[in-house]
């Protein structure tokens, strides 16, 4: 019954999407608004349909209805309830079902919010969104059908991938990722709408700005959550392996970040129009590429869901999308080329150009590295690997350049910077850079990238906090407000700018965390008998006992450890080895003690069955938590930037479009 319901709702959604896409386009071209209206209606109904389908699947999972193919694939009677619910997105078909829901939701919302916008832009955008939806619904009724009927009905199932059951972050990472990926469909659709309707000024950007930033926030949080999950679960105390699927989520983030900056240039100077359209099209296609890489099996990855024929569908979709977008872009390109003018090379505009250059080069490098193994095999017949050493070598210089720009950008006003003012602004940050870099060298640090990272971190902190301070001080003087109130009102009055600065601070936090944790990590292996301790760093780790526990879905062996500092007990850790029925190698669950200065990370590597000894890997990794905190700050910054403003914002925007006097740098 569930199978029929699920399949049926999606089939209807597919039909409605196709209808809606066609109706929207025809309605616009033949000037029949009722057709366009019907397309909007289709979008709303689709949301309802996908909601029903997803709820039906969750219900089937919870009641263990193994007659539904997806439930038979990932369900299990011995899996805890919470895990059962989130196994909705633990395997291919379910994840596409969830994708369909998020897409339907975004589509319906976008259509609703912009329902009163006149002209053909929105109908074309609606058609684009519905077309994308149609693709995914087609997958769901075809190669990725989670609602197939299984006969005879099995009594139980294998449960979701054990790696996914070990940590709470598994609940969080995929939905965040999809909200990010799918969210990029909205600005993409509006870009297509702009190209098709001819409304090529900054209108489509302004309409979709909040959608883009929102999707970007989710994507940022998703990537950091994924890193955190990797760190806590996989046992090597690392958080980024340049795995193809990690790269796949990172690439659209890079181009989206570039986009967020370059649209500011378009909004002020009506420049970079083709570039911005290309960026958002690339971002969207990269999200589809990301999904493709995860699901097609063409690259070897920790995350790869499956290998099968579904990859061909994605290839076709990417091909059609790419051809269609390229024809539109290059066709309308000539019309879009604006004369373009710049007041001065020393301006924020220039910084944004270089920001875009570096982010795009970064994306290109990662894409090349990810796809090269396939190219090499095709052209040379040899399997090669492209891993961390390559990516680090090629992208660390880019990261340094970005950190530098992060500091210089906020110090440079729009249009034209007065060299004296600039010099004054950068003196202290410059001194900070030299001081920190010098101190690092003096203390024996020799890794150049680490020194540069710390130096630039100080530089960026000074510039950014200086901007906050200067703005707050001006308010304090002008309005007599206290420092805190001034700061609050300052941020509130210029959410976009200061939200951005907050996000920059988050990036700095991540950079410092990554540099410190990579450079100063120490590892040792030790075998202990119960009662024995070992000294690691400033900790004494005492092995108390080994224990074993039978759980319905796995067999767990754990070690109780006590952590002491100078004789004082400060914590307990229990690393585990989890043995799942159908797998040979156990999966380790490391035990981590997180503090602001460093993490103590312990793996249970091996043990004697009689509990007489156990082997541990003890890792001390400094400042890891600042990576996660940084991620949160980035999200916070984005949130500040995206919050709806008051009437004043509309006036401010209008003032920008009709620049009155050159003067000092304007707001935002």
């Amino acid at each position, binding site marked *: 019954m569930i199978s029929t319901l699920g399949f049926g709702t999606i089939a209807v959604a597919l039909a409605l999407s196709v209808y809606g896409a066609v109706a929207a386009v025809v309605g616009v071209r033949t000037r029949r608004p009722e057709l366009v209206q019907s397309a909007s209606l289709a979008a709303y109904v689709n949301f309802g349909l996908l909601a029903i389908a997803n709820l039906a699947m969750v219900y089937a999972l919870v009641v263990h209805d193994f007659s539904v193919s997806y439930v038979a694939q990932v369900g299990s009677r011995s899996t805890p309830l919470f895990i059962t619910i989130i196994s909705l997105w633990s395997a291919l078909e379910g994840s596409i079902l969830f994708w369909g829901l998020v897409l339907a939701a975004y589509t319906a919302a976008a259509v609703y919010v912009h329902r009163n916008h006149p002209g053909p832009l929105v109908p074309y955008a609606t058609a684009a969104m519905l077309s994308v939806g149609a693709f995914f619904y087609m997958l769901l009724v075809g190669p990725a059908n989670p609602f197939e009927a299984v006969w005879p009905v099995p009594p139980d199932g294998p449960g979701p991938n054990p790696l996914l059951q070990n940590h709470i972050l598994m609940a969080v990472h995929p939905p965040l990722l999809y909200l990010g990926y799918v969210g990029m469909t909205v600005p993409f659709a509006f870009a297509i709408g702009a190209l098709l309707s001819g409304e090529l000024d900054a209108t489509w950007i302004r309409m979709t700005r909040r959608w883009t930033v929102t999707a970007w926030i989710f994507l940022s949080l998703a990537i950091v959550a994924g890193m955190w999950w990797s760190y806590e679960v996989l046992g090597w105390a690392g958080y980024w392996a340049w795995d193809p699927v990690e790269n796949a989520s990172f690439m659209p983030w890079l181009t989206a970040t570039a986009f967020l900056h370059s649209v500011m240039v378009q909004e002020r100077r009506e420049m970079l129009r083709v570039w911005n359209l290309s960026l958002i099209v690339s971002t969207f296609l990269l999200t589809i590429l990301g999904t493709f890489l995860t699901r097609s099996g063409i690259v070897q990855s920790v995350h790869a869901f499956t290998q099968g024929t579904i990859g061909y569908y994605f290839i076709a979709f990417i091909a059609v999308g790419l051809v269609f977008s390229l024809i539109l872009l290059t066709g309308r390109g000539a019309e879009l080329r604006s004369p373009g003018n710049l007041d001065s090379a020393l301006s924020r505009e220039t910084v944004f150009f270089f920001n875009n250059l570096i982010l795009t080069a970064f994306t290109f490098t990662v894409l090349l590295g990810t796809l090269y193994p396939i190219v090499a095999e095709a052209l040379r017949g040899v399997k090669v690997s492209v891993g961390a050493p390559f990516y680090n070598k090629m992208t660390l210089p880019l990261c340094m350049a970005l950190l530098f720009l992060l500091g210089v950008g906020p110090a440079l006003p729009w249009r034209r910077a007065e060299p004296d003012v600039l010099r004054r602004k950068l003196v202290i940050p410059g001194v900070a850079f030299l001081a920190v870099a010098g101190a690092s060298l003096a203390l024996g640090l020799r890794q150049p990238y680490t020194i540069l990272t710390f130096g630039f971190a100080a530089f960026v902190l000074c510039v950014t906090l200086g901007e906050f301070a200067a703005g707050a001080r001006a308010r304090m003087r002008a309005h007599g407000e206290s420092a805190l109130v001034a700061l609050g009102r300052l941020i509130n009055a210029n959410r976009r700018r200061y939200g951005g600065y907050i996000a920059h601070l988050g990036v700095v936090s991540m950079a410092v965390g990554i540099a410190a944790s990579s450079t100063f990590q120490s590892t040792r292996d030790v075998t202990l008998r119960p009662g024995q301790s070992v*000294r690691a760093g400033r900790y004494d780790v005492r092995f108390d006992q080994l224990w074993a526990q039978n759980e319905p879905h796995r067999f767990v062996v754990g070690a109780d450890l006590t952590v002491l500092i100078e004789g004082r007990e400060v914590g307990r850790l229990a690393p585990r080895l989890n043995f799942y029925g159908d797998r040979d190698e156990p999966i380790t669950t490391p035990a981590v003690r997180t503090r602001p200065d460093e993490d103590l990370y312990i793996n249970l590597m091996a043990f004697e069955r009689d509990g007489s000894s156990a082997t541990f890997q003890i890792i001390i990794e400094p400042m890891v938590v600042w990576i996660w905190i940084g991620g949160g700050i980035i999200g916070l910054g984005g949130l500040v930037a995206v919050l709806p403003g008051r009437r004043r914002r509309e006036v401010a925007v209008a003032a920008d479009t009709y620049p009155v006097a050159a003067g000092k740098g304007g707001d935002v």
Partner: protein
Amino acid sequence: MTPRISRLAMALAFAGGVAAAPVAAEARSTPQAASQAAPQDDAELEKLTSAVASQLRCPVCQGLSIEDSPTELARDMRAVVREQLAAGKSPEEVKAYFVSKYGEWILLEPEPRGLNLAVYLLPVLALAGGATVIVRSVRRWTGASAADHADS
């Protein structure tokens, strides 16, 4: 305190904070003196082993190096790296050994020869090309702007 000095003080405080953190981190995580486990051999050898092991792929993991991977096979392979380095082999010879046993795939970074050069060169060319375009465009655009101002 004048505004400028207070600003300076604040900036230095933050810079100091940023500097203090990694310094403290370095001081703390330097491994303490020997303890119950096996004594640390030549520190140089260990560093070199780590460096070479970071370039070799763990055959049973997904993209991890044998330096990072906690699996048995990775540790055994790392021990082989250490032995060979201790016996006087150069890093290149050690890598060549593993390539002869496992294929080019065992290297985490393609050897910069032949077609592989593309992955190294293309990004650099793209960056250089892009930078050239920007510099030229900025020149042109500021030139145009200057012309505008000159006219009006």
